[in-house]
Each structure stands twice: as structure tokens, then as C-alpha cells.
């Protein structure tokens, strides 16, 4: 088992656009303090930020958690919300069910889940309509997928 170096969880509230992104920028600060490779930090924080914004835009409430081991960084974002009826569509770049309010915040252009997948070395998304969504991502510390 790899050694755990750091773990933390953040609560995220739906529709709280002013605080949206605070958890991810805090994660960035914590990872920088561990002197992790900047490209690995950037990929990790893009994953966290996109998933956090999805919680704020679509869900009632969610939790952003991350665990750093000496092998990789694991990000898990679980929300209580409407869920995703068609995951294949949601993973297509450009597909979006965003409202005008979401787009005014600069998000909801159908790039969120694709960006999470692109920056992950491994990635899963599980969703139950009417219950919520869980996104899990791993980013290798050696930067090799």
C-alpha cells in the first residue's frame, strides 16, 4: 500500500457561485506546499475545479475530497443532485444542459466532464438520476498516464 501523505475534504453548496472554486484553489495551495510537480498540480486542480463547478451548477450539495499518496493523487467529488441521465452524451465535448445563468459564470459549454477525463490518468463517473453523481479521478505523481 502506498503511504498517504495528505487528505482533505471540502463541502460545496449548490448555486453558491461566489464561493465556487474556493475548494479547488485551496487544494492547489496544499499541493504546492508538498512541492509536487507543477504540471501534476495543474491537472489535479483542473479536475477538482471542473467537478466543483458541476456541483455548484447542478447539485444541491457535494463533497470534494482528495488523497495524496507517494504514487498518485485521488480526487473524489460526490454530490446530492439530479444525476446525469445519459453519461455518454455528457462526456461528449460540446454537449450541455446548462442554463443562461451558468453560462454567464463562464461555464456550461460542454467541456467540464471532457476536461476532467482529459486530465486524469484514470477516471470513473457513476450517476443515479434523482440521487446524485460520484466522480473519481487519479493523477499519477510521475506524470505518466
Amino acid at each position, binding site marked *: 500500500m502506498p503511504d498517504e501523505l495528505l487528505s482533505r475534504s471540502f463541502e460545496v453548496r449548490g448555486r453558491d457561485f461566489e464561493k465556487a*472554486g474556493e475548494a*479547488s*484553489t485551496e487544494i492547489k495551495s496544499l499541493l504546492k506546499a508538498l512541492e509536487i510537480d507543477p504540471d501534476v498540480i495543474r491537472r489535479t*486542480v*483542473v479536475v477538482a475545479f471542473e467537478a466543483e463547478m458541476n456541483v455548484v451548477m447542478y447539485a444541491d450539495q457535494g463533497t470534494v475530497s482528495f488523497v495524496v499518496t507517494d504514487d498518485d493523487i485521488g480526487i473524489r467529488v460526490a454530490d446530492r443532485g439530479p444525476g446525469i441521465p445519459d453519461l455518454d452524451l455528457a462526456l461528449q465535448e460540446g454537449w450541455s444542459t446548462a442554463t443562461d445563468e451558468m453560462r454567464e*459564470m*463562464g*461555464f456550461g459549454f460542454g*467541456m467540464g466532464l471532457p476536461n476532467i477525463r482529459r486530465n486524469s490518468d484514470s477516471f470513473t463517473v457513476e450517476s443515479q438520476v434523482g440521487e446524485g453523481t460520484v466522480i473519481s479521478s487519479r493523477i499519477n505523481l510521475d506524470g505518466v498516464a
Partner: protein
Amino acid sequence: MKLVDIAAALDCEALTPLDGVADIDTVVASDGMSEILAFHTPGAVMLTGLTNIQSVRTAVVADVHAIIYVRGKQPPEMVRQLACDKGIPLLSTQLGMFESCGILYTTGLKGAM
């Protein structure tokens, strides 16, 4: 290219101090923050019409070095304050996105996408 030279090329108003920014060779331009995150290049300057707090948070996440708001847009004070706290200079140009990108393209800066 130095940020002050980019500011001069677009006739920008500086909304925060411009000190301490490394040379810039790349431009990312979009009102969609996920577009910036998808094609980010560390150390780029970001052109956008989006002035809310997510413009600065996206810049932090994508390691963008400075933000230029187009069409003369001005961010709210809390956005300016967050940018100061994070060390990300903010500028504003009266030019639109198309003109701004065109001018910067002719200076030799490259796009990230």
C-alpha cells in the same frame, strides 16, 4: 513579450499593479472558462469578456499570468481584490476580442489552442 508591451499594444488600463510577471509568449482567449482550462498553457495571458470571480479563479487554476478584459469591461472590486491577493495582474482594453487577438497575433504571440 513583456506585459507592459502587451498593455501598450492594446492601449490597456491597468486595474492592478503589473509588477513581477514573467515574459509572456502565449495568449488564451475565451469567455468560456472551460475552454481556458482545456487548452491552458502555463504563463499565458488571458483575454476574456467575463469579469466575474470565476475569471480570476480560472486564471489561478490554469496558471495564467495576467487577465485582459476586452470591450472596456471592469471587474467588481471583490474580483480585483482576489486578483491582487493571488498576484494576477488585471488590465482592461476598449478593444473587442477580435481586434485584441488580431493585434497580439501580429506581435508574434501564439495561441494555446
